[in-house]
């Protein structure tokens, strides 16, 4: 049984202008020890789907799913009190902006120990030792004094380490990292990514990495799930995704990266991600797709098989490399 299983998750927000579907039929499966990356541009619903699973969305959101289970527990109709026992303990999340995710009014030590106090049955002294241990684990020098520091006294990289320490405090089985390095400098980003990979390997926990940076995906993930406008459009192991993307969106996204450019003009994807009012009929990517025809503009595309990377497309790209081997 997989650790986390989500089938056909849909999230709709009630807005003044009518319902807005942010996540549209997303599936995800994560096993113990997996590293899954969810990539997509802004508005692709990658964060919302994970927040929905954690139960962190506001009341305006309507969440429906055929199946949403974590470790055999159904998350769909878990009460708030029950849910609080799971999140923060077995399932933890790191947010994008470390600076604004920590409470500025309390010391770092207090905030780490709070998670321990809520979830574990430890004495005061044991909590203190565990907090020191955690700061040491995430590579913060001089943990004893850092415990007494307030968030404004820490740099961005340090704050993110504290956030990671907090998320790891109760040995979670699933860690969700929502753009953990977007706000950080490159050299610090490399440190944090290495730290996450090492921790994942040592503890055997599952890691879901939400990001828009293809480079981060390539270096950290095992499996990649590409989302576009709230839908999952492709899922593949990381190597084959970069070698032979099957969905035209993934292919276009990869070729738009400056480092893959062969000439001075970059290949672009015309147009923008559809919003609330201009959702097209049929395939959501069809207005921007170079291969779209009338079928794409009218009929919802099917999800292809595993050999086509579960691409949600009428005409998935079969690459020459694949043809040669099959």
């Amino acid at each position, binding site marked *: 049984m997989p650790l986390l299983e989500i089938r056909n998750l849909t999230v709709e927000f009630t807005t003044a202008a009518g319902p807005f579907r942010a996540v549209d039929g997303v599936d995800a499966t994560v096993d113990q020890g997996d590293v899954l990356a969810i990539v997509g*541009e*802004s508005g692709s619903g990658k964060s919302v789907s994970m927040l929905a699973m954690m139960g962190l969305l506001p009341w305006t959101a309507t969440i429906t799913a055929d199946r949403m289970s974590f470790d055999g527990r159904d998350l769909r109709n878990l009460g708030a009190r029950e849910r609080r026992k799971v999140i923060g303990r077995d399932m933890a999340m790191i947010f994008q902006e470390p600076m604004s995710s920590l409470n500025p009014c309390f010391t770092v030590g207090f905030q780490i120990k709070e998670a321990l106090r809520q979830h574990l049955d430890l004495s005061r002294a044991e909590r203190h030792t565990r907090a020191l241990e955690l700061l040491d684990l995430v590579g913060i020098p001089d943990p004893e004094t850092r415990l007494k520091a307030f968030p404004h006294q820490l*740099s*961005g*990289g*340090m704050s993110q380490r504290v956030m990671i320490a907090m998320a790891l405090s109760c040995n979670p089985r699933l860690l969700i990292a929502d753009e953990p390095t977007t706000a950080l*400098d*490159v*050299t*610090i*980003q*490399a*440190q944090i*990514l*290495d730290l996450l990979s090492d921790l994942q390997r040592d503890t055997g926990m599952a890691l879901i990495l939400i990001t*828009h*940076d*293809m*480079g*981060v*995906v*390539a*270096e950290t993930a095992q499996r990649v799930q590409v989302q576009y406008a709230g839908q999952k459009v492709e899922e593949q192991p*990381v*190597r084959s995704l*970069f070698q032979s993307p099957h969905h035209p969106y993934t292919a*276009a*996204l*990869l070729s*738009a*990266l*400056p*480092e*893959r*450019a062969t000439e*001075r*003009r*970059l*290949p*672009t*994807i*015309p147009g*923008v*991600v559809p919003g609330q009012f201009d959702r097209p009929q049929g395939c959501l990517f069809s207005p921007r797709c170079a291969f779209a025809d009338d079928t794409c503009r009218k009929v919802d595309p099917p999800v292809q098989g595993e050999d086509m990377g579960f691409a949600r497309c009428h005409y998935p790209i079969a690459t020459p490399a694949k043809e040669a081997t099959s």
Partner: protein
Amino acid sequence: MTEPVIIAEHLAKHYEVGGGLFAKPRVVRALSEASFSIAPGKTLAVVGESGCGKSTLARLVTLIEEPTAGTFEIGGIPATPDNWARLRDSVQIVFQDPYGSLNLRHRVGTILEEPLKINRPNLTAAQRREKAREMMDLVGLRPEFYDRFPHMFSGGQRQRIAVARALMLEPKLMVLDEPVSALDVSIQSQVLNLLLDLQERLQLAYLFISHDLSVVRHVADEVIVMYLGRPVEFGAKEDVFASPRHPYTKALLSATPSTEPHPDRKRIKLAGELPSPLAIPDGCPFAPRCWKAQDKCRLDRPPLEGDSHKVACYFPEN
């Protein structure tokens, strides 16, 4: 050989912070010893992490602040405060965040015409309008956008408006302060293409500030790598990316995630973080994090030396 648009020599900017009735203010050396020149139609990229002085450099070049030391000239006119008013026509800036840099209460037309109203008072309203329309066409904005407000546009379109506004006075030098880092990848390539097209057509000189090395590798002709307010390496793009000489440049390149998955790649891990700009170490500023540092590095600051590919290091690579 055409005359460079801008020639800067030993630019420096120090800020005083703190200080009270009796306490002595402390000095932040935000930028020191920056020297460069940019020819028309060329791009100079400035790369570095936060706190390395990139944005301070942008503020000096766009005549927002006066340098503490050093001189620079734009189009042959020395940029002293007396000349600022007439030089401002020829330098324009595009900011990072297109959501914050456009006035939400003005229509696109008004935004584009405002620079003309102030700097070209003898133009009539009809002439201004015509110029704004021409510019919108140039940057790929549809004519009906003229009457719309910024909130109706996506990030990429807004960045086009910001570029159009910067071009209204026909500048020779454009300062691009992280122009694409707030945009999604698919939009980023559209804006980069636009910038490259405009540069070719109008022979603009770009000072391109970025922390994203893959973007810099694509657009730049020459690169300055900065660390803690000082240039540590300078050279043609090909040289800097193919054979970085300063250890910091090398570490920066190796830390940049690449989209070619090869897990066995060895990454140079830098220990520690940037020191505080208030307490820049004596000697080489990079020494505390450098794996090659020796006693000499900690005592003396290495000067930026070399012919075309300059480096500030006692033990350069290669």
